[in-house]
């Protein structure tokens, strides 16, 4: 909670001191009219001192009023309503891809070793080097423009259509993360494979599948989970790039757009949502970690 309050003051403050006047952007694209700019200033209290502006905004939020967007001249809650499902679906889609290919690939590489390991290592090194927007450009060029398998932009209507629209964005968003998770998983699994308790289990003649499930994967999971937690929070931020590149109406593209227009109310709410997502995801990861390994809870108390 404290995190959220501090974050909200910092974010509000940063936008407050950034140069530029959002009202000038609104006036019909720039036809001369200082009076209108002045009226917009008045309407949105742009000339009030910082704490007065912040206070007005904060009390509104506490009462459930998320504020009004200057750029869209619409309620922020209304703007969010249609966009949150798109972004959630995109993050979920990317998350599933990360779990399947990241954890799956990393585990496979860790257990099998040899060529599989080399392939995953090389593949993940390459994938990590590609930022989302570069992947997006390549995917669009190959799968949308050349092959016409997937649409170029938009979020689609209905679940099936949405999934079809979000496939390329999810891949471009997930690729670098898949590589990262695969690496961590691979190293972690390798480490556990060579550890004493695994050797001990082997010497007791336990079946290999049992060893892998009970001793290797379970013990390898805390670092993987920790990284995945950070990553899912990062995905929310990463949607900004993927959504811009694929023309998806989500909260990421809304954030970029609003930040560029200094649309304070919107940026503030979206940033807070991302901070909140980060906090929640990390809490969930901690809880799951404790469930997997009760020693973590003890450690937490000691430190």
């Amino acid at each position: 909670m404290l995190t959220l309050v501090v974050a909200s003051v910092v974010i509000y403050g940063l936008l407050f001191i950034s140069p530029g006047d959002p009202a000038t952007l609104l006036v019909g694209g720039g036809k001369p009219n200082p009076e209108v700019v002045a009226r917009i200033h008045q309407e949105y209290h742009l000339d009030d001192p910082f704490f007065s502006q912040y206070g007005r905004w904060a009390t509104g939020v506490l009462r459930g009023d998320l504020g009004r967007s200057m750029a869209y001249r619409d309620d922020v809650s209304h703007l969010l309503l249609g966009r949150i499902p798109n972004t959630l679906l995109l993050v979920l889609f990317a998350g599933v891809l990360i779990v399947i290919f990241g954890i799956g690939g990393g585990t496979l590489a860790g257990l099998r070793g040899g060529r599989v390991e080399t392939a995953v290592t090389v593949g993940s090194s390459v994938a990590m080097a590609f930022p989302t927007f570069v992947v997006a450009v390549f995917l669009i060029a190959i799968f949308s423009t050349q092959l016409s398998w997937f649409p170029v932009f938009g979020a689609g209507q209905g679940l099936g259509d949405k999934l079809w629209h979000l496939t390329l964005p999810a891949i471009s968003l997930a690729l670098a993360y898949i590589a990262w998770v695969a690496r961590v998983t691979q190293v972690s699994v390798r480490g556990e494979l060579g550890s004493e308790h695994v050797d001990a289990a082997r010497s007791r003649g336990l079946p290999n599948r049992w060893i892998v499930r009970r001793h290797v994967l379970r013990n390898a999971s805390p670092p993987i989970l920790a990284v995945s937690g950070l990553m899912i929070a990062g995905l929310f931020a990463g949607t900004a790039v993927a959504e811009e590149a694929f023309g998806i109406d989500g909260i990421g593209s809304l954030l970029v757009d609003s930040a560029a227009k200094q649309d304070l109310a919107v940026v503030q709410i979206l940033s807070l949502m991302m901070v909140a997502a980060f906090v929640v995801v990390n809490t969930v990861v901690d809880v799951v970690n404790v469930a997997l390994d009760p020693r973590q809870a003890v450690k937490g108390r000691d430190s």
Partner: protein
Amino acid sequence: MMLRKTTALLTVTAAVTLVAGCGGNGNSGESTKAMEPPTDASATTPPGKGPVDSINWALSSGEPTTLDPVKTGDYSPNTVLMNVCEPLLRMNADYSTSPGLAESWTQTPTSIVYKLRPGVKFSNGKPMTADDVAGSLKRNMDPATDPINGDFFTSVKSIDATGPLEVTVTMNKPDILFAEGMSTEFGDIVDVADATAAGASYGTASHPPICTGPYKVASWNAGSSITLQARDDYWDTKLQPMVKTVNFKFLEDTSTLTSALLSGEIDGTYEAPSTSFDTLQKTDAGKLYLGPSTQVFNLSPANPETPMAKTELAQALDKAIDRAAIVKNVWHGAGTPNRAVIPPSSFGKGPGAAVFQKAYDALPDNSRPDIEGAKALVAKVGAPSKTMTLALPAGDQSQLQIATFVQASAKSIGLNFDLKQMPATEFSSLFYDASKRKDVDLVLSAGYVEVPDPLSYAILLFPKDALFNWTGFDNPQVDADIAKARQETDPAASARAYVDAQAIWEAQKQRVPIGTPYERLFMNKRITGAPASFAYINMPWAAMIGAS
């Protein structure tokens, strides 16, 4: 001066270069080959032949901030609005005008009487009355509506409904710009009762305007799309829309837009990205049309103290710029270098056009640089020792290219500039706040002339008290000539006064002209008919589209 909206992400511009390289039909190897400059730019495209169920049209400047005619004056709002609302006069693709909602009019120096067309209905079924017309025009003078075109109404004394289908505009003094402006969005007629009832939300997604045009707003989802639906009770039997539904998508990312045009997901767009010029010209998915345009790029000294406000230095920079190279490299030959700040494409089709053109042709040809001449001018006053700042909006690749050419030309004559790319809100603040201009020496500005009379643009730039007169330029002769041109209702006489003033500001290089890119219209091969000229910004262009 209308600022060109810019895309927000720097990553976007990086992506554009990439798609130009790997997009298209395997022609990537040829993308470095210079295109032949197009020899002619036609204002029209082959007429549409048959009905089309629906098209997707891209708004490359993003979502309109408003569709209220009195607040409109930018790329996206106009592109949508002028299919929904109509002004008293109709603008044509060649910038001529013909009767619109006004069937005829009679004009004296201080009054205009408009005879309105009978049988015109708003999209809600109500008939258009003289009260609607008078009320719609008066909204431009009502501070409560936040109007942005007040400049064109400064000479108006009163606007009254003087008959069931007659409206009389009385002027305090003659003003040629008012009558000419009635072919643009601020001459649009709306259902006034509806506007009054809507209050502050009028023109937003929650309350789009109700008008008389060939289309009506069927839905507007803020942030995602606007859908227009053809009306079957539209008054003009010669302009019955063939496309039933027009879906506007907001696609500011130039690489996404290019891909969507190539794949056919988007059927068309105005202001097609110049960075994808080659790709769009080569594709067989559709055709890139080039048309005349009144858009301009200029350089403006930012404040009275900057060295660039010195006449000699401005003249020197003017001589040093290689406009032919800018046209060839930035616009792929699809544009013209400008000899004057306000370009010939804005001269209109009236009796003044010949006067404007003759004066323009008499200005020195500046398409090629004269480095020696420029250096001599710099030597006269001495080059400033400090490195100056050239401001431009961030994220727009073609403006960055122009600025880089200017920077190189300036350097060759001893004027050093740093380029300062500014986020959209910061850049637009420059146009309103003198204190923001203090840290800047030169501003690269992009805009367009809307009313087909160069005088409409000059009044914003050169009079002593004009809002965009940033250098404190004070020339009584210019002020007197501009005032005279405005009060002269004979177009030829008005033009003569204008060109007298132009001779002065162009000689002193109050602003340094660069050039005008052609309008770039892209349409999928399945449709045709939209006007290719920039006049689309004030035309019901969608109603002209049909199957090819």
